[in-house]
């Protein structure tokens, strides 16, 4: 899972080092876009949930499917009360099940729409990243291949979404646990010959 680390306030880039992906329990990662305060509230709900789950002390812990289901209920019920949590959430995780290691990736949005897919994006990513992911994702990619594909999408989003910034964080979840890597930047290329002198074909034009 990858996100940029910017949070805007209208058209002002207010916060530049915001962590929008967090680990939940032992088996999941949650990433959010939209209203940041609502995301913080959701993290509080999830804290309470994982705490009471831990207090059962039954050797079982909530997996990504269960957390996704919980979030779907929360989001949908809030929408029905006309008081939504204004977020698009991405839920990913791995849990050892009866059939072996079960990988899970799904999303919920503010109106309660939820689904599971091999590739998820929020916001502008739906328009710019999903076409790339649909064409280039395949089963059994290595971690390096996956990072390269995700970086390809992040670069296009950096070029074409005005609210993105050049500071990204990647997070990984496996059966060993969650790892959230430190932020880094991507290299951009602006050296096309046609950018240099666009009016060279007609001097004095605009």
């Amino acid at each position, binding site marked *: 899972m990858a996100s940029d680390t910017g949070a805007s306030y209208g058209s002002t880039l207010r916060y530049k080092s915001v962590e929008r992906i967090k680990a939940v329990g032992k088996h999941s990662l949650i990433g959010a876009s939209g209203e940041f305060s609502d995301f913080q509230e959701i993290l509080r709900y999830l804290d309470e949930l994982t705490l009471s789950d831990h207090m059962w002390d039954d050797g079982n812990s909530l997996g990504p499917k269960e957390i996704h289901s919980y979030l779907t209920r929360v989001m949908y019920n809030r929408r029905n009360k006309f008081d939504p949590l204004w977020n698009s959430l991405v839920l990913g995780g791995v849990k050892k099940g009866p059939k072996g290691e079960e990988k899970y990736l799904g999303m919920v949005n503010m109106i309660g729409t939820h689904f599971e897919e091999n590739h998820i994006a929020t916001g502008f990513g739906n328009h710019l990243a999903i076409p790339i992911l649909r064409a280039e994702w395949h089963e059994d990619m290595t971690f390096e291949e996956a990072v390269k594909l995700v970086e390809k999408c992040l670069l*296009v989003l950096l070029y074409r979404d005005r609210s993105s910034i050049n500071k990204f964080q990647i997070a990984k979840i496996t059966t060993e646990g969650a790892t959230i890597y430190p932020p880094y930047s991507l290299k951009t290329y602006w050296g096309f010959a046609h950018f240099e002198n*666009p009016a060279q074909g007609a001097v004095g034009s605009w």
Partner: protein
Amino acid sequence: MAGYMELPTKGGFDFGLCRRNESLAEKKGLKIPGFLKTGTTIVGLVFKDGVVLGADTRATEGPIVADKNCEKIHFMAPNIYCCGAGTAADTEAVTDMVSSQLQLHRYATGRESRVVTALSLLKSHLFKYQGHVSAALVLGGVDYTGPHLHTVYPHGSTDTLPFATMGSGSLAAMSVFESKYKEGLTREEGIDLVAQAISAGVFNDLGSGSNVDVCVITKGKTEYLRNHLLPNPRTYVSSKGYSFTKGQTEVLYTKITQLKPKVDVAEGGDAMEE
């Protein structure tokens, strides 16, 4: 009406009826008819020897596909072609108009048309109409000064770019270009990249669909590859064909009416006047 002076027309739209339209809508509840927009993916890119333009072939009327295989790459000059997105009538009319103007200009100057000429004619026309002519165009061609690619927006602004996309599928196509474009592409690479970008629009945008048209313009030669890709073939057609034998449908009753005329034509009478 003494003292009333006839003002000469200045061109552009006459907004004199706007107040009357507003009051009609308010008081009489008259519904003003809406515009029909086309969903589209159109792209262009500059490669080593020239320009490649691409377009999908779906024309929509709201939620319905009006034309499954329309032509969105319009002729401007033998060395200049233009893809159009927005209101179909506007793109057709404005490209036809500028194409005629370019032809007259070629007769007057005796030279091959330049892309910047087409660009200036388009942008000044669209600006005059203040965005009400809803035509978003990707204009490309090769002239004496080299290959050029421009985008023209409905309000009259233009951009000069190495690669461009317009229409509802422009984001899907742009994601392909931004990740895969490099300078100095060969002809095959250029056509392949354009086809990939249009396919991204066709499969990821609901307003674009059907087939992929490609147009390759190089110095002295233009190739219009109509339906270069047909990625949406008609499936589930019965291979045996359809045959309806007699007796397949039960006949309830038969009634035969003779279609002979029941009017007697009188011989003679006045001959028809020449």
